[in-house]
């Protein structure tokens, strides 16, 4: 076969709203056993972008200040999120607070439609994306695999779109792989990131193999027995998947095909199969 799929042009760097990033693994920072372990995991995976959130600060307890100090030590780029927002209005205000607090116009936009599935509310999402893009934000929307929604996000001004692999925290991998492949086909020029639902490095590898530009995950690393080792494993798997996409994967076949050539096989005349 030895055919390369050139539909989607690949570049050595991942371009996120004009910023070049080498690592295609974006990592969440929540739920780690300790800041030290989080720090080791970030280093082990070679991650360059991490997500952070905003939460209510109690006067005098300095949690925010300590976390800022910690973040400074990591030396990576921050992607604040709007986790927990249930309406466009909440998400917009949260994004504006995040921009001031973290001094970045990047925002991972989450508008949650259902507390059980934590699925995106695509209506609130598009509404908020529209407002935020016009307000100068670089929006990273967390969305479903819905093509029509992605079109609206792109039209709103998003040049990065982040469909889920599976519901947040489930670790089920690419539940709707066909739909994700379809998204890739429709949006060759949008940066596509699988965000949420990945549970194993093989899932991240698969996302890259179908041509996604990056993956973003949290729970599968934070909740691993050894988070730093798991972060390294995800980092390797993402590189492997990207390399494989670039190298041109064989298509699956229905029929078996001998790998060892048949010609010259000894005993072909002897011993007819009983």
């Amino acid at each position, binding site marked *: 076969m030895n055919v390369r799929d050139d539909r989607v042009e690949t570049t050595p760097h991942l371009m996120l709203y004009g910023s070049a990033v080498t690592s295609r693994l974006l990592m969440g920072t*929540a739920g780690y056993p300790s800041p030290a372990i989080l720090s080791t995991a970030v280093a082990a995976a070679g991650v360059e972008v991490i997500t*952070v959130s905003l939460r209510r*600060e109690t006067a005098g307890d300095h949690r925010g*200040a300590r976390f*800022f100090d910690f973040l400074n030590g990591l030396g990576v780029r921050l992607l*604040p*999120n709007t986790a927990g927002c249930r309406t466009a*209005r909440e998400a917009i205000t949260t994004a504006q607070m995040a921009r*001031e*607090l973290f001094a970045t116009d990047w925002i991972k936009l989450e508008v949650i439609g259902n507390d059980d599935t934590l699925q995106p509310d695509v209506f609130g999402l598009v509404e908020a994306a529209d407002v935020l893009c016009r307000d100068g934000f670089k929006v990273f929307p967390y969305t479903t695999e819905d093509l029509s929604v992605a079109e609206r996000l792109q039209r709103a001004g998003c040049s990065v779109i982040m469909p889920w692999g599976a519901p947040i925290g489930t670790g089920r991998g690419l539940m709707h792989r066909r739909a994700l492949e379809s998204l890739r086909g429709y949006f060759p020029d949008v940066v596509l990131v699988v965000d949420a639902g990945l549970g194993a490095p093989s899932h991240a590898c698969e996302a890259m193999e179908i041509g996604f530009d990056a993956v973003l995950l949290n729970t599968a690393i934070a909740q691993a027995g050894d988070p730093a080792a798991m972060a390294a494993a995800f980092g390797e798997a993402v590189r492997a998947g990207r390399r494989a996409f670039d190298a041109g994967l064989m298509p699956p076949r229905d029929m078996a095909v001998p790998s060892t050539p048949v010609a010259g096989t000894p005993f072909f005349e002897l011993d007819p199969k009983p």
Partner: protein
Amino acid sequence: MSQTVIVNGRPIATTSINLAALLEDQGYGAARVATALNGVFVPAQQRATTAINAGDTVEIVSARQGG
């Protein structure tokens, strides 16, 4: 004159008349926080000119871990 406002979900009594004063008064001092009043973002440099009225809802947030 003390009035009641909701700060981070809890009612408090305050005599502050603007957001900057409220932050100072509540002990946030120089903390690196962001603020919203009644669901609308208030940039740091506008806190001193943003009046507080009885029944207002104030959010004061800072950085945390997130996914």
